């Protein structure tokens, strides 16, 4: 693990290089074998399977990653954080969202589900300023987002991950998170140039917070790995860490469990709960019903750009419209 006193910089030469987080193992055949499962090469069929939990990087739920005070008015638990009000969005002939309304309360985990192409990701895009709604409005803390730019919305406290991972592939894990932390910093050229106290303070605090987040997500050992060299699961986790780094009030996760196996999904479920317990509000898009049912407090269902249902997981599970549109008849199989 890198020396925490090291200034957090992405620069080549000003800092002494940290020792690589993961020592490079030589690429020889024998050195890499035998670390997992049993080792009798003659009878592969006889092996005992590895404990799946061992495969999953351990997260550290105890690390305090509560959002930093970013000057957003404090809303108490249960109050409305964000409201989607009669939002319609058209792409030419395609109506991606059709008068959709729902809201998210502070401190809850809200599930957003629906068939493919129902408009879930589009909903995220509208909430984060990627698209402007054709009509209707998104209100955050009671105020419409209006024509705010993407980065301004992030600064207000809405952060997201992407359905297709979009990390800064050639930056290290730590640098990826630092970019998120920087969202609320203000050092510019002048303070960097003269190394003003503000700059030093922000750098050291930012570095500390980034390391905390990495530790929380179980990525502290990989802080100096390039994002693109991380395994898929780590990349998904790093996306969450980066989003958390912006100290959001509302964290939007777009299919964070895609490509995970059931064991990994279970871990993720834990993680999402822990994140909420640390003071975040979570909006979750996910197709895995077990996960959605297990973690959310409330669910909104979209179909063809319209909201077709809203309610507690139990209500949604039994809603005939949802079953017809989304779950399909053989519900057991689907999960």
């Amino acid at each position: 693990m890198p020396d925490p006193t090291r200034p957090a910089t992405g620069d080549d030469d000003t800092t002494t290089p940290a020792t690589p987080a993961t020592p490079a193992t030589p690429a020889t055949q024998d050195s890499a074998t035998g670390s997992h499962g049993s080792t009798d090469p003659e009878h592969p069929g006889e092996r005992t399977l590895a404990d799946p939990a061992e495969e999953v990087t351990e997260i550290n739920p105890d690390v305090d990653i509560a959002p930093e005070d970013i000057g957003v008015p404090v809303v108490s638990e249960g109050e409305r954080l964000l409201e989607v009000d009669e939002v319609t969005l058209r792409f030419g002939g395609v109506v991606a969202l059709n008068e959709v309304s729902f809201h998210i309360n502070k401190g809850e985990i809200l599930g957003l589900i629906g068939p493919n192409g129902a408009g879930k990701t589009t909903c995220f895009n509208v909430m984060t300023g990627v698209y402007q709604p054709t009509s209707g409005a998104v209100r955050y803390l009671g105020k419409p987002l209006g024509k705010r730019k993407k980065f301004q919305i992030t600064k207000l406290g809405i952060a997201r991950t992407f359905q297709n991972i979009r990390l800064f592939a050639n930056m290290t894990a730590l640098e990826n998170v630092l970019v998120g932390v920087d969202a609320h910093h203000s050092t510019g050229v002048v303070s960097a140039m003269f190394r003003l106290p503000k700059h030093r303070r922000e750098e050291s605090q930012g570095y500390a917070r980034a390391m905390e987040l990495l530790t929380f997500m179980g990525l502290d050992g990989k802080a100096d790995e390039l994002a693109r060299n991380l395994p898929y699961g780590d990349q998904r986790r790093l996306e969450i860490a980066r989003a958390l780094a912006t100290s959001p009030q509302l964290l939007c996760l777009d299919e964070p469990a895609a490509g995970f196996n059931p064991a990994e999904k279970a871990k993720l479920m834990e993680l999402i709960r822990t994140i909420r317990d640390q003071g975040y509000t979570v909006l979750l898009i996910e197709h895995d019903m077990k996960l959605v049912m297990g973690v959310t407090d409330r669910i909104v269902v979209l179909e063809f750009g319209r909201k077709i249902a809203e309610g507690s997981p139990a209500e949604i599970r039994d809603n005939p419209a949802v079953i017809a549109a989304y779950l399909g008849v053989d519900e057991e199989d689907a999960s």
Partner: protein
Amino acid sequence: MSTTTSAPAGRKSSSTGFRERVNNLPKAVKIVLWVLFALFLFLLPVLNIPFITTEGSDFGGVLFTVATYVLVALGLNIVVGYAGLLDLGYVGFYAVGAYTVGVLTSEHAHLSWVVVVPIAIVVAMISGVILGAPTLRVRGDYLAIVTLGFGEIVRLTLVNSEWLGGAQGISDIPKPPGVELFKVPSLDWSSGAPVVDLDTTSTFLKFGINDFVPYYWLALGIIGLVLLFDILVKSSRVGRAWEATREDEDAAELMGVPTFRFKLLAFALGAAIGGLSGALFATKAGFISPDSFILLLSILFLAAVVVGGAGNRWGVIVGAIVVGYFPERFREFADFRVLVFGLALMLLAIFRPQGLLPPRRTVRAKRADERQAVLEEGEASA
């Protein structure tokens, strides 16, 4: 580059082993090495080291040219290397800087050099903002052609504007005020061994028409300052924002990076450094005309950055030295020097595809790639 063969200059060496060894030296030793290296750079033009010294053209002048290239490359590196914006019209800013000096010291006013250079930097920076504000919304390669257009617009405006001296340019640009502190004699190697030649001296710092060495010294000092600036800014939030923008603009924006503002900042800073370099050029040349700011120069500047290793400041310095020095060194090839230079660019591209000194991360990635290639090729041919 040949200068890297001497001891402290080896810091530029791409061999990580060497670099680590240097890094591991005690701090005091490092400082001494740096000082020696600085001294070496300072004395380089008067040492007249055989083989390194250019026969065909005045070595002091060549070193000055190389120094302006280095400066330009550092500026362009901010735009291309850090922020990932392909700029094919960088010479435009260089011209703006040079012409600001020309206009304010000779053509239309006779302000002092000391006043004019900061003005030139500011004017170049403003021109960067003026170009950037509308065009930075244009993406990727479209930006390349827009900037190329800008460079040409600047040049053609100079050609066609009487007020700016037209195609005939501006002459009689005054020299900067100097102080005559001491004289530095040069070495003469004509007898085989170095002999101190007391007749040929350069005065620190007297700016004349026919001794280019003081200009080199001036440029060297400015490079030092710009380098420091670059190091400080890059290793801050600003540097990270540039990098994130380069990697994935949309994602960066959604992570709270005002990408447009940072791109504009990169453009403005790059332009300012380009303008500064142009101002130096005008000062030394004493005469500027639109012919000094042709499109080809933009391309050479870009070549310096890319060949050196876009994103790594030491790399682009090496690249600038290659692009600025080799064509002069190749003077003995006479008519064939552009041909040789072209071949050199191709060979560099093919054999150092990541640049001479790629940024740290690319080095790492490259090492992995190389090992992979070895492994894969080993199998494929087996």
